[in-house]
């Protein structure tokens, strides 16, 4: 029996738990000096430490600790004066030591929260997501399972291991259970991950690219009958690679759970893998029997005991919270809510801000990024930010339009050229020979040619029938290959024929 979402939320209350893994953008790994640059040849960014050669020892990357403390502070956490690393023991070929250095019962940041605002039936509403802990750990290597139907280790013909990622610093942000979001659960979760992403970006501690895996979300969902205070069995959905997927995965799991419960079946405690194409999840590893990771304090590392003065310094240096920052921008720019949301949804707010910072008018900057550039991105099916056009390019183009060196139409050609990889605006203008025809004598010559070509039309205009001017203007524009400013052509034409705008 297939249920609708409305039927699910009429009967059940969802309880969420979100675990977000963030790859820090430190230049070296968590416990050794190897580079962290993405996309290098396999196994070229390795050393005795991250390959777990016998005898090698980890040392802590101070920068990673600093980044983690910044994250904790930005999420309103307390920073532990004393925290420890722990070993999480399990065997897997892409984990060189066969234990992961993580943090267990003594994490570095605890008890924070993030407020997110979403639109509800009763207007905007703030939901507080409580953060249980923020801790540091290291990433594993990557396995590529070759052959076999599933691309998973079972059934593969052979596997290739790349340890470049092994030891990249990760921060895990774990929420407390999140009840009380009702039918808005999927949206609240999405808003939370979006807010986290914005905060992390504002801190400059991570690339936060979900599609590249530098921000990964595991979504725990369980349902209980509305009014009950007993928690249901949860599933943990992994592999959720975009904000939209967070929302879809949770919605899908809520429906799946509800269907099982309605049918008198039980929900199995397990990990599930989100399928981008179907929006459904596939069963993964059972967690019915809790895996025993045999955690114990990492004896190779001394405890982390950050200096209180240092923490206060980091707190004082925190950037403005993105949600507050957004409110301030909206006021400064006098943008209506709808437009603001459009910019946020299109993920262009910061690039618009950067364009404005370079001198462009906020409305014009917004217009370019949400208009022409957004259109090209849609056409090419890529994210706006992945187009090869920078805030500085747009600011330059806006300035050229302001000075009358470009018309709007020509400016669009320049934008297109920049995106096509023809270079910076100036280079595109030079290469394409784009130039506003401002030379009155050249324009006059074209106007005279037009009038000579259509003497009857010219006469109509002379007789005061101004709408007829359009045809002549069109000829002039064609004659000048579109490079003339149409308004100027009109003014000159009317003057030439002894008329003026009514």
């Amino acid at each position, binding site marked *: 029996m297939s249920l609708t979402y409305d039927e699910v939320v009429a009967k059940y209350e969802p309880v969420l738990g979100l675990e977000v893994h963030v790859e820090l953008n430190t230049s070296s790994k968590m416990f050794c000096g190897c580079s962290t640059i993405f996309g290098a040849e396999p196994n070229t960014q390795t050393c*005795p430490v991250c*390959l*777990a*050669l*016998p*005898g*090698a*020892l*980890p*040392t*802590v990357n101070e920068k990673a600790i600093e980044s983690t403390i910044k994250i904790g502070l930005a999420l309103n956490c307390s920073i532990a004066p004393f925290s420890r690393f722990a*070993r999480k*023991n399990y*065997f897997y*070929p892409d984990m*060189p*030591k*066969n*234990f992961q250095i993580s943090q267990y019962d003594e994490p570095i940041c605890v008890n924070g929260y993030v407020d997110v605002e979403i639109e509800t039936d009763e207007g905007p509403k703030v939901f507080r997501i409580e953060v249980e802990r923020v801790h540091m750990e290291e990433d594993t290597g990557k396995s590529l399972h070759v052959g076999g139907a599933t691309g998973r*280790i*079972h059934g593969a*013909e052979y*596997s290739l*291991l790349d340890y470049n990622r092994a030891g990249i610093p990760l921060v895990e942000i774990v929420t407390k259970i999140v009840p009380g979001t009702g039918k808005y659960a999927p949206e609240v979760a999405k808003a939370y991950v979006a807010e986290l992403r914005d905060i992390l970006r504002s801190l400059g501690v991570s690339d936060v690219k979900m599609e590249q895996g530098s921000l990964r979300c595991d979504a725990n969902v369980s349902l209980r009958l509305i009014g009950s205070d007993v928690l249901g069995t949860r599933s943990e959905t992994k592999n959720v690679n975009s904000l939209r997927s967070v929302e879809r995965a949770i919605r899908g799991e809520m429906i799946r759970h509800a269907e099982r419960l309605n049918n008198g079946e039980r929900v199995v405690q397990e990990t599930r893998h989100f399928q981008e194409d179907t929006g459904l999840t596939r069963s993964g590893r059972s967690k019915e029997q*809790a895996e*025993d990771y*045999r*955690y*114990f304090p990492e*004896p*190779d*590392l*001394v405890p982390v005991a950050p200096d209180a003065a240092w923490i206060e310094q980091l707190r004082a240096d925190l950037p403005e919270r993105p949600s507050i920052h957004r409110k301030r921008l909206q006021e400064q720019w006098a943008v209506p809510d709808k437009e603001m949301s459009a910019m946020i949804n299109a993920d262009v707010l910061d690039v618009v801000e950067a364009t404005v910072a370079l001198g462009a008018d906020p409305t014009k900057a917004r217009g370019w990024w949400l208009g022409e550039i957004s259109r090209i991105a849609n056409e090419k099916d890529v994210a706006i930010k992945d187009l090869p056009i920078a805030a500085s390019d747009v600011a330059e183009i806006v300035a050229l339009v302001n000075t009358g060196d470009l018309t709007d139409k020509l400016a669009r050609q320049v934008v297109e050229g920049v995106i096509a990889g023809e270079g910076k605006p100036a280079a595109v203008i030079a290469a394409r020979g784009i130039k506003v025809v401002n030379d009155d004598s050249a324009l006059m010559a074209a106007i005279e040619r037009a009038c000579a070509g259509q003497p009857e039309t010219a006469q109509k205009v002379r007789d005061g029938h101004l709408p007829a001017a359009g045809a002549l203007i069109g000829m002039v524009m064609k004659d000048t290959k579109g490079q003339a400013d149409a308004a100027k052509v009109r003014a000159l034409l009317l003057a030439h024929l002894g008329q003026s705008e009514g």
Partner: protein
Amino acid sequence: MIRNSASEMASKLASGEITSVALTQAHLDQISAVDKDVHAFLHVDTEGALAHAAAVDAKRKSGEKLSPLAGVPLALKDVMTQKGIPTTCGSKILEGWRPPYDSTVVANLKKNDIVILGKTNMDEFAMGSSTENSAYGPTHNPWDLTRIPGGSGGGSAAALAAFEAPLAIGTDTGGSIRQPAAVTGTVGVKPTYGGVSRYGLVAFSSSLDQAGPCARTVLDAALLHEAIAGHDPKDSTSINAPVPAVVAAAKTGNVKGMKIGVVKELNGDGYQKGVRTRFEESLELLAAAGAEIVEVSAPNFEYALAAYYLIAPSECSSNLARFDAMRYGLRVGDKDGASAESVMNLTREVGFGREVKRRIILGTYALSSGYYDAYYGSAQKVRTLITQDFNKAFEKADVLVSPTCPTTAFKIGEKANDPLAMYLNDIATIPVNMAGIGGMSLPSGVADEDGLPVGFQIMSPVMKDDRMYSVGAALEAALLSKWGAPLLSTIPALAGSK
């Protein structure tokens, strides 16, 4: 020339009386002559050692300023990585592995131009007290080839006693430097935990492992101690403080006014008669040299062994997880599309010996959910109590002393099937590791009943390693004048060799 102490060799090298090449060759010859019987070495790097010796000689000839031990040969316990040289840890699972990097200890040895002769035998992954757990066969005690040379560093100690090397590196997790020193009549020092870098020391139990110097005299040990010790940014548990002035202490050997605490619990029942006699005699000699002997009590030491056998196996169960056939060492069963899991299982089944497996299983169990608090957690509490016992004792005494081991060297095979009896050998050495303090064993003569060497243990507070050298040097001087010649000159098994 091989019967000299390392410091005598160093003087002769400095004066030009001998060359490092000649000295190295003499030791290589001795290895050729006796190691078929002793089996102290797993790998002898003849070419590398001679090449390094020649380079040191050339440096000396060119007038370059050299470190005190430059050109003196050394035997390296096979648990330390040395670039390009096989490192097995006495295990089949690492057979054929040549590390691509130097441990910090080896880097320091090279910096000091100490010539590395080769790698010495050991109990597999340093787990054992007899070197019988080596996958490559036992080492024999030069005092009596039918007896064990101690362990895990039996190879290093035997190499010293058999004059195959004047210096050696050992590692000590529960007594692996000091117990072999005791039963071979040599000197072995476990520095303060963090005093010598563990980078490149293949870990058995990270919170207990400590590399240290092995030699035939207290001064030689001190010279080597200074060469290898010091802060290392690659080991985050390495102490960032100056190395204690151990050479100065060993040269002075002054115990006047020092308070020497005899640990009540580390003597008496279970200690062989001859061991006790030699211990009492040493105390008298120290008193005669001006020290004040006091008695101290460490009531929690009786739990040390039990706690050790939870902490060390727990850490080892995790440390040895990396030996999985994926990146280096042995690989078994990799055919017919065998899964990674089955290759890992088979390799570990075949590659690890019984004692290593026993400890991995013990440690895995002790860390398991539901048992952690009762086992690992309680053991850590015991560790704290032992540290407190030491702290209290050090309020009353500058150093503490005890026999190093309850007995002299036992017969090969005697305790091989009785792990508990074997573990009891380390009852007096383990508390030192649990508290991370310094410990030394030096020869105090032979037991009357069996003519085998007896070790005297000196324990000093954290980073006060110089104190044990002061006491060690004083006792050594007193014993030497009593004997009239070094104890090792009376070694019977190798009497035939020059």
